[in-house]
């Protein structure tokens, strides 16, 4: 019994707690209208206050985060950028109307004071000060200034203050104009001219209680009062700009660049900063971290003024045409021309954005972006000449020369902090054999990229001119008008400035496409390694890029340049350089660019002066390497310098098998490997795979055992301080010396066999990955002998240094449905496949279709939306490559810009729910579906949503079978009270159990019923719906 009571007591308390404290809703993504901490419109992960809105979308798309103007009628103050609830909750009036008259500001004159406020604020302030006011909304903020300053001694409560008459009257004091508090007649025992001080830029005397007295020294217009070396002086307001070796006027602003800017050559770690002269002192306004903001400057009458603006470099990678590139002031066309078929222009950032090398995100750390400049040049050799013992190159021969690396390095550098380059302290980044080409001296001599160079390109001023010429209000107005030109993120100012820059640019359109270069190379070249990357360059021809056209009688060799993020120099000797500039505070980006072991000292991170320091200052030992594991059941045994590897039976491993292995270091390190012993760490050509830049575990994957008898892998690992093992760690793999009698194995195809491609496609390029160097051919008829096969594939059979063996070709004249070819390969030992390898491609026969969209066109929805009863957007698809299975998304054409993917990634039926009420209006939306073969389908629909804000009405009252009966004009729940209409529905007596049109209650002539009704929208009568007194009859 007592246990039951206990349980009930707990339950009671639980209910009480739930009702008192709002329920916390923890979200991982989406948007909280308000968090438990009281912040408004915060994206997940966050703890939402469940009494407020929570959206599955980001705050930017949530209706409840729409901002407007908030007016405080008690104070006459207006603020913008507030959400409706955040405003109303604090007692403000909210409006989305930008031109809200109550928010118009002007100059308020009251007494001797002026304020730039709203008219109602002017009224309120003046009233509180007991003064008349004048309000003039034609006066700008800059002109609304204090007109006079008639000060004097103000006596009150036995004390004195030197202030204006108006302020004195507010203190209810006795005012003596022009008299100081130390005046003997006041008998306050104050020492006159006790000390000096600054006021309004001049030096004044002050009495012993700190009241201002007469002027001690009137500083000239070009001077200002300042405390220096123990006394107040009139100091020059001009500033000495040490870097540019000149004086700057007070208020002048200018750009401060660390070193070279523009031409895609901004060194790693460099940032653009804006400085200004503030009363004789040069001060930093801001720096654009990672060069995400850049500084532009203009000079008029010898005075500079500078602005920081968003770097539009990200758009360069999305531009698909030469004109678009020329139109963006932060992009430039870069020509990379090595040979006839490897010659192209690409649109690259003029001021590349820096990367966060510590980030795990491959977009932020630059791996994806740098990878766009990893390209392969196909070099064609005369096959017969090779057989003759010569090695005659036929096409793209310069790709075999140093020119290839030199030009590709330049392209790589242009993408951002990519490839071998220099940091802002003019120190070269880590080098490697595969990337190294230019030395610091090369850069300094040929490009003037190092400190002290004057010849650089400043960011485009046309944008700056625009910003300067328009006042705040005009900007907002223009922004509104030019909404169509807003950028992809909806940031109006980007689009607007961007557009304006088009008009001002003197367009110089270079001829980007060479005669022999296919036109599409320009826009497609950069997407090579990332067909599905963020940048969405679309599908592209993988095999034909940079390849000579015609048949493939030649031997094709691939020369690949790998572009990866730049790595800081070893060690941390330069870390201190980041702390040396008194004006520019160090940040993570600048610090890390100076050395691998440079980091910001944690305790100084959020301070005015973050400190960059060498985290491995005393480390001089190299990483110790141990062998960890090997794949395929193979075994390893320790040797003098590393390990020996054999198969599980202790025999040598079969030739052309692929293996993976992993090593471990005793400290975080980067490891490189090569097939021959090298003295220096940087000389080893290949990087081992690790999860982080500096890691403890390092892997080599898919290593093809293509050598005879023995394959030796030489490994060196370097710690962040640059210490590396002098003696190579050697992985010695024993390979079976038996003669090669095995046929070629095709490991995989790209696109994979049995793939579907888009409807109406007539050709596709494909590539076969082989286990050994071979020559491959194909036919559409099965069983054809290798010699009789008519179609030769382009193979890298003779490329000795190739990591992967491939053959590729273009399949043409494809038919709808199945397309099958049969492939045979001939390896270097003359082993020809006895059986065909099949490769199948399906061309989609039926178009992808959207069968239905709900809500259907013109549907009217007039019910409340909730989690239990949401509005469903529903789409059904059919056809396409996979019987309608596809991925769909929607876009609404209303102000909120709702757009999202349907949750089902691969389905014929898609559903998305709207769980909270949306504003009353018509909603037009677009559905877009795509299947895995790339087939697309689109559809549109619209519906009307009507929000009911009226409470239900009682339309008929009568007596029926002893009951007082009444009906409402809509389904409702009704309540009654017996005293008056001032009762909460929750406290009243419920007449109707569920929503209904008809309601009845016992006919009782002794009572008066005060009735309120609530509809499904929770609209309830503020007073009564009806007051009913049943009669005795």
């Amino acid at each position, binding site marked *: 019994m007592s246990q039951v009571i206990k349980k009930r007591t707990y339950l009671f308390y639980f209910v009480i707690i739930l009702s008192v404290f709002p329920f916390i809703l923890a979200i991982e993504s989406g948007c909280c209208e308000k968090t438990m901490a009281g*912040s408004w419109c915060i994206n997940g992960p966050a703890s939402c206050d469940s009494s407020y809105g929570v959206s599955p979308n980001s705050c*930017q798309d949530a209706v409840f985060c729409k901002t407007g103007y908030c007016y405080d009628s008690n104070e006459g103050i207006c*603020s*913008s950028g507030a959400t409706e609830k955040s405003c109303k909750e*604090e007692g403000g009036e909210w409006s989305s109307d930008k031109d809200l008259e109550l928010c118009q500001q002007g100059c308020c004159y009251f007494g001797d004071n002026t304020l730039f406020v709203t008219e109602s604020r002017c009224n309120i302030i003046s009233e509180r000060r007991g003064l008349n006011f004048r309000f003039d909304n034609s006066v700008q903020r800059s002109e609304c200034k204090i007109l006079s300053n008639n000060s004097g001694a103000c006596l009150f*409560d036995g004390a004195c203050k030197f202030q204006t008459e108006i302020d004195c009257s507010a203190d209810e004091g006795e005012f003596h104009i022009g008299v100081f508090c130390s005046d003997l007649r006041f008998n306050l025992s104050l020492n006159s001219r006790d000390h000096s001080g600054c006021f309004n830029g001049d030096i004044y005397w002050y009495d012993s209680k700190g009241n201002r007295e007469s002027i001690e020294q009137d500083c000239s217009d070009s001077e200002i009062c300042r405390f220096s070396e123990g006394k107040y002086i009139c100091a020059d307001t001009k500033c000495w700009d040490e870097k540019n070796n000149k004086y700057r006027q007070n208020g002048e602003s200018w750009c401060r660049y660390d070193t070279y800017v523009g031409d895609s050559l901004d060194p790693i770690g460099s940032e653009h900063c804006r400085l200004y002269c503030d009363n004789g002192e040069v001060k930093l306004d801001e720096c654009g971290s990672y060069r995400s903001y850049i500084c532009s400057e203009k000079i008029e009458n010898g005075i500079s003024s500078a602005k920081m603006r968003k770097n539009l470099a990200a758009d360069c990678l999305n531009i698909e045409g030469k004109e678009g590139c020329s139109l963006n002031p932060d992009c430039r066309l870069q020509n990379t021309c090595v040979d006839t078929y490897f010659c192209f222009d690409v649109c690259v950032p003029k001021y590349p954005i820096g990367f966060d090398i510590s980030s795990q995100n491959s977009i932020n750390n630059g791996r994806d972006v740098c990878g766009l400049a990893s390209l392969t040049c196909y070099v064609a050799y005369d096959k017969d000449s090779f057989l003759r013992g010569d090695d005659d190159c036929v096409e793209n021969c310069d790709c075999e020369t140093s020119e290839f690396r030199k030009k590709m390095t330049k392209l790589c550098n242009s993408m951002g902090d990519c490839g071998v380059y220099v940091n802002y302290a003019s120190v070269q980044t880590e080098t490697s054999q595969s990337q190294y080409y230019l030395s610091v001296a090369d850069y300094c001599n040929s490009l003037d990229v190092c400190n002290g160079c004057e010849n650089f390109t400043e960011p485009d001023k046309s944008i700056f001119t625009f910003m300067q010429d328009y006042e705040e209000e005009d900007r907002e107005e223009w922004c509104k008008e030019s909404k169509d030109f807003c950028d992809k993120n909806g*940031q109006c100012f980007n689009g607007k400035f961007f557009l304006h820059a088009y008009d001002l640019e003197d367009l110089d359109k270079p001829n980007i496409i060479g005669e022999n270069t296919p036109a599409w190379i320009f826009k497609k070249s950069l997407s090579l390694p990332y067909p599905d990357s963020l940048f969405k360059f679309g599908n592209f021809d993988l095999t034909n890029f940079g390849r000579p056209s015609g048949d493939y009688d030649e031997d094709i060799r691939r020369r690949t340049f790998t572009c990866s993020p730049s790595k800081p120099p070893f060690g941390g000797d330069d870390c201190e350089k980041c702390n040396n500039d008194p004006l520019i505070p160090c940040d*993570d980006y600048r610090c890390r660019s100076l050395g691998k072991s440079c980091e910001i000292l944690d305790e100084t991170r*959020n301070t005015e002066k973050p400190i960059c320091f060498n985290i491995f200052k005393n480390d001089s030992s190299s990483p110790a390497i141990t062998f960890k594991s090997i794949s395929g059941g193979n075994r390893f045994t320790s040797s003098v310098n590393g390990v020996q590897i054999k198969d599980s039976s202790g025999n040598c491993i079969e030739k052309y098998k692929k293996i993976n292995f992993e090593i471990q270091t005793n400290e975080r390190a980067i490891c490189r490997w090569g097939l021959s012993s090298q003295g220096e760490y940087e000389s080893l050509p290949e990087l081992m795979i690790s999860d982080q830049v500096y890691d403890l575990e390092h892997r080599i994957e898919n290593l093809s055992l293509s050598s005879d008898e023995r394959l030796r892998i030489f490994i060196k690992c370097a710690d962040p301080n640059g210490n590396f093992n002098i003696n190579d760690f050697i992985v010695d793999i024993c390979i079976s010396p038996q003669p090669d009698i095995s046929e070629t194995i095709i490991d995989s195809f790209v696109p994979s066999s049995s793939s579907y491609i888009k409807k109406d496609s007539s050709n596709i390029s494909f590539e076969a990955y082989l286990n050994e160097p071979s020559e491959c051919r194909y036919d559409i008829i099965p069983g054809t002998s290798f010699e009789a096969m008519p179609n030769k594939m382009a193979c890298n059979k003779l490329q000795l240094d190739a990591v992967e063996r491939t053959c590729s070709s273009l399949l043409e004249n494809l038919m709808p449905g199945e397309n099958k070819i049969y492939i045979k390969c001939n390896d270097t030992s003359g082993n020809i496949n006895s059986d065909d390898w099949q490769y199948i491609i399906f061309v989609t026969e039926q178009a992808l279709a959207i069968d239905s969209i709900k809500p259907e066109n013109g549907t009217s929805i007039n019910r409340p939306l909730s989690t239990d009863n949401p509005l469903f957007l529903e789409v059904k698809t059919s056809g396409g490559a996979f019987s309608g299975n596809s991925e769909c998304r929607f876009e609404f054409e209303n102000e909120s810009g709702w757009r999202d993917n349907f949750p089902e990634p691969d389905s014929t039926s898609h559903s998305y729910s709207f769980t909270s009420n949306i504003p009353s209006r018509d909603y037009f939306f677009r559905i877009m579906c795509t299947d895995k073969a790339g087939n697309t389908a689109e559809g549109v629909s619209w519906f009307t949503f009507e929000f009911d804000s009226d409470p239900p009405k009682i339309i008929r009252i009568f007596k029926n079978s002893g009951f007082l009966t009444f009906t409402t004009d809509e389904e409702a729940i009704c309540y009654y009270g017996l005293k008056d209409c001032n009762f909460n529905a929750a406290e009243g007596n419920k007449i109707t159990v569920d929503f209904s049109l008809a309601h009845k209650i016992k006919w009782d002539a002794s009572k008066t019923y005060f009735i309120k009704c609530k509809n499904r929208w929770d609209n309830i009568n503020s007073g009564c719906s009806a007051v009913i007194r049943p009669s005795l009859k």
Partner: protein
Amino acid sequence: MRKEEKKAQVTLFIILGVLAVAIVLFFLLLFPKIKTSQFQEQNPSQYLDSCIKTDLAEAVEKVSLQGGSISPEHYIIYNGDNIEYLCYSSEYYKPCNVQRPLLKAHIESEIAEELSPLADECLRKLKIEYEGRGFQASIKQGELQAELLPKRVVLNFNSSLSVSKEGSQNYDSLSVVLNNNLYEFASIALSIIKWEAAYGDAETTTYMNYYHDLKVEKKKQIEGSTIYILTDRNTENKFQFASRSIALPAGYGV
């Protein structure tokens, strides 16, 4: 009286004296807020002024350094101060949402809430002071209200004091005034926030050109936050607040 008795009496007085000093010190240590206040029968506001003004100045300084809040909940730490975000977006590329649209009202309520217990204590002590001087005193206590006005912060007690001895006197407008630019700072902060919410940035030198006594510093943090520090060049009073708007990440990410 014998010499020994005299000695004992002196010792007793010394002990009592030490005890009295110890008790006073004990109370002063235990209740540091208890201060000796100047009292003039005709001027109760002056008593309140001396009783609470230091605390008012401290509260004003505290809210000024913390973005307008006594205990910020959504803040960034900078130079050891917890600085509240007045405008915030956690996303990259997105403009911020204003967190305190009625900033002035918010600051006023923060100051009033912080000082309310102290104000009650001051009124109680004021009544005791009058009663100790033979007055009959009664206080009708209202809700403490802080008000930001140009160049000053006013603490209105909204309480009425009635004292009577030979005649009676009513004091209805009990208030304490602190000269401070918090009103001006709040309105500049609102203006900066307006720019932050629209463009993700505010031009600081413009404000300094308009108001020569004002220094506006902008401290950009690498994760996208901006700390604004407004300083009155004459008084060195400061107001700090934070914003995160249209933050841009490293690289070309989304």
